[in-house]
């Protein structure tokens, strides 16, 4: 099967309620420090004005945090970057709120809640906050969301011959929706990928192959994000935390895997 890459990983970002930031996550994955005892409150992205920061949905807060950090660590200006936003379930808290309001008092649906309920809300706030008119997309692929978004990002880098930002996130489910779309805590990750590596950047090659067995997460971080819907992303970040060549398989469909080789 055709391979994609090598692509340069220019920037990495990670934020989860128990591992708030890539530096902490990397140390915990490496076994260099224990995880903070208590979960962190949600991030407050500097991109948003102070009033917006308080009002922003959790999806927007965590997505903009990792998007900004990945651009920073890549040294890339956000405004020029096309982006791919991926989320398994989108804003589970707003969906619960909308469904509950519709069941009790439908005319009380708030216009802001409504426009924040679209799957591309985080991408929209990102483009407004950064002034970026470069295309974004917002996708979902259920259990295969992280791999599908990574593949789309890589395809955009190759076909557009320019760096692309990848942002993936899922948040905590609320109310009855949590029984059919379970997800705990906040988890957001971002990668800035390009074709022309800087000296220090790591390189990644992707291959779509037959198979159903994804690599399992094994680090001390695994238990801290396992109940978030985006947990399938963790094996890739375990590899990135350990600065050595490695390969992992992410599930891409019922019978396809996305093999990722890092050198």
């Amino acid at each position, binding site marked *: 099967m055709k391979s994609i890459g090598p692509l340069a990983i220019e920037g990495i970002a990670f934020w989860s309620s128990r591992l708030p930031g890539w530096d902490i996550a990397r140390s915990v994955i490496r076994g260099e420090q224990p995880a903070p005892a208590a979960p962190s409150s949600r991030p407050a992205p500097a991109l948003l004005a102070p009033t917006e920061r308080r009002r922003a949905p959790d999806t927007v807060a965590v997505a903009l945090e990792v998007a900004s950090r990945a651009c920073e660590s890549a040294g890339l200006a956000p405004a020029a970057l096309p982006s791919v936003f991926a989320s398994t379930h989108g804003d589970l808290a707003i969906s619960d709120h909308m469904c509950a309001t519709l069941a009790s008092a439908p005319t009380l649906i708030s216009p802001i809640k409504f426009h924040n309920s679209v799957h*591309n809300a985080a991408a929209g706030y990102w483009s407004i906050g950064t002034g970026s008119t470069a*295309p974004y997309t917002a*996708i*979902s692929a*259920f259990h295969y969301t992280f791999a599908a978004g990574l593949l789309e990002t890589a395809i955009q880098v190759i*076909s557009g011959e320019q760096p692309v930002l990848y942002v993936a996130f899922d948040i905590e489910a609320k109310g009855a929706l949590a029984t059919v779309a379970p997800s705990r805590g906040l988890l957001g990750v971002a990668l800035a990928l390009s074709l022309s590596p800087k000296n220090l950047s790591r390189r990644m090659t992707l291959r779509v192959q037959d198979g159903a067995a994804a690599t399992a997460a094994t680090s001390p971080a695994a238990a801290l994000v396992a109940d978030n819907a985006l947990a399938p992303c963790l094996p890739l970040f375990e590899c990135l935390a350990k600065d050595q060549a490695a390969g992992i398989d992410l599930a891409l469909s019922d019978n*396809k895997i996305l093999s990722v080789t890092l050198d």
Partner: protein
Amino acid sequence: MPGLETAALPDRLSQWDCRNNRLAWRGLVSDGFIDAVKAARSRYGADRIAVVVGTSTSSIGASEEAYTRLDPDGRYPADLRRPIIHTPHSIGNFVQHALGLEGTSVTVATACSSSAKVFAQAERMIRCGLADAAVVGGVDTLCGSVLFGFNSLELVSPDRCQPFDVARRGINLGEAAGFALLEREAFAGSWLLGYGESNDAHHMSSPHPEGRGARLALQAALKLAAIQPGEIDYINLHGTASHKNDEVEALVVAETFPESTFASSTKGWTGHTLGAAGIVEAAISLLALEHGVLPGTLNLDTPDPACGPQIQRENAQRDARRALSFSFGFGGSNCVLAFGRSDLGAAR
């Protein structure tokens, strides 16, 4: 859309049964589409055909229904305890299984540009060799979120929608499912010549006042298709009949295209089908090229002063070789598609 309530999915697909996937199924069984996909499956293999479909709300209507029938413990009623219909990928997962496909399957959800952007994503996948063909499309059905949400934004017309009319009072909501089979080489059929995507970077639910993002998407589509504005014979406009959209879009068209370009909004016939609008209007554009019949703008009586001579009221019979379709959505997401008639050959 009448009759969906009594039109359950075939037994083998009962796991995905809900109103939105029923409309998707009605689309899939129309116009010989399933047979076309079957033929492609035998040509390329089930795992070489990707599924890239768009939606705004997918099957959230099923979750809304569950919340009206929660059991005493606050859990979903037993008949709706099916996780796949309570997540955005419900539609993409359903289409893949309904068609017996085994490649990648992705749902694009960028509000009203969703099922235009699917063409772009699928083209890139095919160009990079990750698929030989792709089923693209989009499906949206009415649900409480959309109905009460658009009303809360005061964007819904109390009357029939009147795109580009000076007296327009907002959108009519519509429901639709549509699909297309995209292949690198085809024995018959029209061509995707190009596409352009952009964002307004302006506001979550209101377009940029000068149409900044719309212009960028249009320029990108023309550039990728390697064509000039004067070579466009027909434009299917976004034309929702919302006050802002139509004003901005009319300005962009008036400033970009020669007087001879024929442009219209078909939402007077279909309503605004939201995440399905891209595929519906792509299909109308392709039919216009194939039959040489260009649809006018239903319910347009007195054009807004912003309208140039391009925006037409009456249908016309006219030879047309190239068409554009505009789709703009919440979050400032824009997509313009460029199509060419079957005898034109691929632009590249």
